[in-house]
């Protein structure tokens, strides 16, 4: 990936209709790192991601993409720099994995949509990286949830952008497939130097996989930093309203905060 100034949000406010969700948010991504955005339901996590890719216009403040105001880009120009994997993507019945992944080349192709050598290569390497080469001709609706999620990640990879935004990529997946997707994202970050932002509900995942955790509550950033510094017993109580205990992952040596709730003890 070529050098590229990561996304920066400056005093961003955004919302839907009358309802404001983000309230003067400042956030600067670091290239080649994984950032996890966590927070309670309705806190504005997904909205942060939507604002980063101009899927939602800002009310005030500015989003900088590669150092320039994101409003000065065309839609396809943004798509060449930023890939987004929405929370519940859907494809028409019968669409094959390869056909889906080829759609990732839309921002790069001309009127006739010819993939060209570069496009074909991008599609093939996206299929290889996600381990989907053998599934390429299978319709998406015949795959398991984990394989399907990998196909959507492959679509985002084929896009060739250096920033990848994922909105709850592990929701609806069983525990093995959750790890599969997270491991995949981590390896992309290291092998391709991609800048990754994930909205996560599972705080243990956030602690295990992210370089940096950003906690959003009521449209503001209430904590930002290394997982062990951010995910504290105190934060769990004030932001999420649950009791928690601190543990160390014996494998990675990372500290993490395990919510234990209140009942059944």
């Amino acid at each position, binding site marked *: 990936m070529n050098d590229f100034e990561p996304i920066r949000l400056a005093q961003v406010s955004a919302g839907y209709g009358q309802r404001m969700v983000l309230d003067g948010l400042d956030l600067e991504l670091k290239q080649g790192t994984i950032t996890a955005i966590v927070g309670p339901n309705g806190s504005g996590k997904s909205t942060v991601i939507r604002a980063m*890719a101009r*899927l939602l216009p800002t009310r005030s403040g500015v989003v900088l993409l590669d150092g320039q105001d994101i409003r000065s880009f*065309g*839609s*396809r*120009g*943004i*798509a*060449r720099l*930023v*890939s*987004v994997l*929405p*929370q*519940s*993507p*859907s*494809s*028409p*019945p*019968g*669409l*094959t994995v390869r*056909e889906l992944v080829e*759609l*990732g080349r*839309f*921002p790069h*192709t001309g*009127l*006739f*949509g010819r993939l060209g050598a570069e496009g074909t290569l991008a599609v093939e390497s996206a299929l290889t990286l996600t381990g989907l080469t053998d599934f390429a*001709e299978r*319709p998406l609706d015949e795959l398991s949830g984990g394989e399907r999620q990998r196909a959507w990640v492959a679509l985002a990879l084929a*896009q060739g952008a250096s920033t990848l935004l994922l909105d709850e990529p592990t929701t609806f997946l069983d525990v093995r497939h959750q790890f599969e997707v997270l491991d995949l994202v981590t390896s992309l970050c290291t092998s391709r130097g991609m800048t990754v932002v994930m909205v996560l509900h599972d705080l243990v995942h956030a602690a295990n996989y992210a370089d940096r955790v950003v906690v959003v509550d009521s449209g503001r950033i209430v904590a930002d930093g290394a997982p062990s510094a951010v995910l504290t017993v105190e934060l769990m109580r004030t932001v999420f309203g649950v009791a928690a205990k601190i543990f160390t992952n014996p494998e990675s040596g990372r500290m993490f905060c395990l919510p234990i709730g209140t009942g059944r003890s």
Partner: protein
Amino acid sequence: MTSARSFAVLTLLAALAAAVLFILHLGLGTVWIPPDRVILALLDRPTDPTDLTIVRELRLPRAILGLLVGCMLGLSGALLQVVMRNRLAEPGLTGVSTGGILAAVLFLAGTWGLPPPGRLLPFVVLLGALAGGALVLFASSFRGRIDPLRLILTAVIVNAVLGSLTAIVMLRSQEALGSILSWLIGSLNGRVWDDVWLALPWAAVGIPAGLLAARAANLLQLDDESGRALGLPLQPARVALFGLAAVLAAGAVSVSGAIAFVGLMAPNAARAIAGADARRVLPLAALIGCVLLLAADLVAQSLSIKPPISSSAYRVGLPVGAVLAVFGAPLLIILLRRSIR
């Protein structure tokens, strides 16, 4: 679903079927002309000079219209199913059929008793059809946004209103009833070169543009968020694809009337055969539309009926729209039973 090679074979087969039907279509009529003589006449080397007149002057316009109208309706339906996100969508849902027919009824009722409308009627239908499409688009857009579900519901409502108005006008002037019937069901009987020239510009613009829309169509088939994230401006794309579908359907309606089923059957058949990728579905739907319409018109021509009102031995061909509905519906049901489990 299918590999690139088997898709190429399928496309070739469909094109071949269309070519064979086209030649047979030119041979069929009061005088049967065998395929070899049809081809020679087309190549300007007729074995019998009357072949030249019959094939090129009398029968060619109708066969070309069969090709064009089938292609336009098939493609229009395929585009509309993408924009409306519904496999039940068909060209009539653009509002162009009911718009065109209302215009025709008003025109016939208003000019009844005056000199015959002559060649003006197709133009009137065309204008009405375009107005109907514009009305649906206008009525369904809300703050500049087109939502697939709202678009379908608006189309159904606008069609119902235009249809009722047509019924009211027809009740008030029943003399117009006879002439309007063939527009209501769709027919290619007695079409001449003038009709070809009327439909040709819409086909010449609409068909290539519709096929080029495949890339945008593919992104519109995803969820809204994914389509936008890949760089497609959704609202302009929806308006453009709906406009293309309406223009294609209006061009077809202006020369053939409201032919049903082709625009529903062709895209569904194309999807059952080629999967979901619009780069395959759109051209295949257009080709299947040609095949269906030419085949149905062949049947329509051979099954002529003797109208009870005429005392002479004069016989008229069946309207192609009726043939399509009668034979096409069971075919579509079989296809859907096989493709949707």
